[in-house]
């Protein structure tokens, strides 16, 4: 497991295949080694509260135990975490999910394309943007 100090991306994803594909996409820009993976919402919240903050959280919505939108709610309610950039990365294209996520204060909403090339492009570009281009709250 990567040491907390080096972690810049918290990936919250329960599907091992999607974890693999996401990491592969991020590796395009050599960002894969700074990723910590949480397999459900509870784990993600524990990690965020106990460890140092990442630069961005990539959050799936459909998760065991605590769902993605609940994670987002708790993050935004936590005075220490509420500034954390959160990008929803999900299969859901459903309008209510999108609207609810933005209501809860998500910073970006990305629908995972089924097509691998498109998926890789979307995820790698997003990683690049949030880690290198975007100016986060902690710099």
């Amino acid at each position, binding site marked *: 497991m990567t040491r907390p100090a080096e972690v810049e991306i918290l990936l919250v994803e329960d*599907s091992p*295949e*999607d974890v*693999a*594909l996401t990491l*592969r996409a991020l590796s395009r820009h050599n960002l894969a080694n700074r990723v910590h993976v949480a397999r459900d919402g509870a784990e993600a919240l524990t990690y965020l509260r106990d460890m140092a903050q990442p630069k961005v959280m990539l959050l799936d*919505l*459909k998760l065991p135990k605590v769902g993605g939108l609940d994670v987002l709610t708790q993050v935004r309610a936590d005075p220490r975490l509420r500034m954390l950039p959160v990008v929803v990365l*999900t*299969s*859901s*294209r*459903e*309008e209510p*999910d999108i609207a609810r996520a933005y209501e809860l204060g998500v910073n970006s909403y990305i629908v*995972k*394309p*089924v*097509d*691998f*090339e498109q*998926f890789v492009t979307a995820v790698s570009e997003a990683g690049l943007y949030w880690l290198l281009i975007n100016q986060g709250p902690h710099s």
Partner: protein
Amino acid sequence: MNGATVSETARAEQASAPERATAASPASRRASIGSGWSRLSIATKLPLILAILLSVVFGGMTAAVYQQVKASVLAVASERLARAGQQMADLLATSMRQRTTLVNGLIERSNAAAYLQTPSPELQDQVVRALARQVGAASQSAAVELWTADRRVLHASGFQFPPMAENHSLAIAVAASQSKTAVVLPYRRVANDLMYSVATAVRRDERVIGYLVERRKLTSAAPTVALLTGLIGSDAKLLLGNAAGDVWTDLSVSVPAPPLSALATTGLAQYRRGDGPAVLARFVPVADTPWLVAVEFPRDTVMGPAQRFLIVALGLSALLTAGGVLTGWRLSRRITIPLRQVTEAAEAIAADRSAARIEVRRADEVGRLAQSFNSMAAQVEDSRRRLEGLVEELEGRVTHRTAALEAANRELEAFSYSVSHDLRAPLRAVDGFARILVEDHGRELTPEARKCLDVITDRTRHMGNLIDDLLRFSRLGRQPLTRGSIDMTALATTVAEDLRRADPERAVDITVDPLPPAQGERSLIKQVLVNLMQNALKFTRSRPQAHIVVGCRHDAGDPVYFVRDNGVGFDMTYADKLFGVFQRLHRAEDFEGTGVGLAIVQRIINRHGGRVWAEAAIDQGATFFFTLPEKAEQS
């Protein structure tokens, strides 16, 4: 659908509210109906009608009977007056006939004719004695005169009269020329006395040689008056006078004459003499004299019984009318009080749904009305209770159905969510790992294996598209429409430009005609245009120059939009399969697609209350038509 049901119920309740408000104030509505008489209560009308009716009947009867009584009283009075008058006239006529005979006889007794011819002293003495005897014989005789033919007084005995007036002389002359018997002349007033003359001509050989005139005073004839009183009662008054109307007397003194018009009346006359009371009178001429006898009766005495009858009859009528009105009033109250009870009960039922009943204590029409009202009220209440039960049951059913529908909707949403998320995730894995296999182990794979992996990738992408289209299609049925006015020309132009930009290499000619605006949800109508124009582009791909026209024609005034292409078209035999989900008329290897696009078009148009259809022929191109009614009967 659920929403529509709820709002329908709400509208029905709103509509019924003012109706109930109107029903609560029937009095205000009643006031606007009719006016005047029709607004009066029956309790007022019936006595009023009775009062008028009874007044008319009794008044008419009284008037008729009074007229009869009056007529008969007058007839009786007239008869009695006439008989009395006739008696008096006969009496006088007889008396005057004796008098004329006496005067005629005086000519012989006095030997006046001889004296007038030969006025010797002997003859004169004879005349003077005869005349004096005549004056002495009758107390009423005031004087007897012997005139010459030229009306000079030759000899007079008794009262010396002044020379008589000219008309008097004339009357004598006329009388003499017409009759051989003595003539009675009209009364004259001389000093305080009433006088009359009886004159006769003295003739010799048919020639008048002189006149004998007896002057007589009218004296009160007590026996005559007594006779009259005996005949017709003490109220009667006997008068005597000249028919010419100048001198009249009540047999003692001179009295004002009756009016001339009354003197000419043969029947019953009514008049006032001077300032006296109104009288009824009959005038009877005295035969062979210029006199009239009048018998008068005070009018009040004669009419007394008739007047008394009138007063009694009027009093009786008033009494009967009052009794009738009172009866009518009580009767109408007897009728209207239960009627008012019925009305009030009906109003109570209409106003606050109370179960009003009327106490029935009678068996007549009103009682029956009250009974029928009660049974009607019972029925109304019964049916209302049944209706309420029915409404409750219906509401329960609606609630139940609504809950069921909502549950179904929730399930459907959960299902689509699962499809959206859970079907895509494995698909992405399949595609991703196939690519990784190619990327990482491409060199170890045979060309056959690479081809297989290509198929996996291609089909995975297709399945992804299918899932996306299906989800969009299922969403269409659920989300509510937001209608607005759409500038169809602008929308079609935008879509056309977007599509051309997506494939700039193709030789495509898209024409957008001016289109009338439409009512609907802009994003959905845009989806319709996108799908139809994408189809058109797809099926013209084999054409060297694609022609696509977006236009509008009018069927019976309603706009029909269409998208026409010069593509490969299709066989109209399968036109009914065109709009089904996953229905395809072309092979997948010729034209790509999921078979959902036209199903989405149809669902959108149907939800807008419109119609969509197509006309085509193989290799002749295809035209897709759709309508968008302004007021959609939404499903």
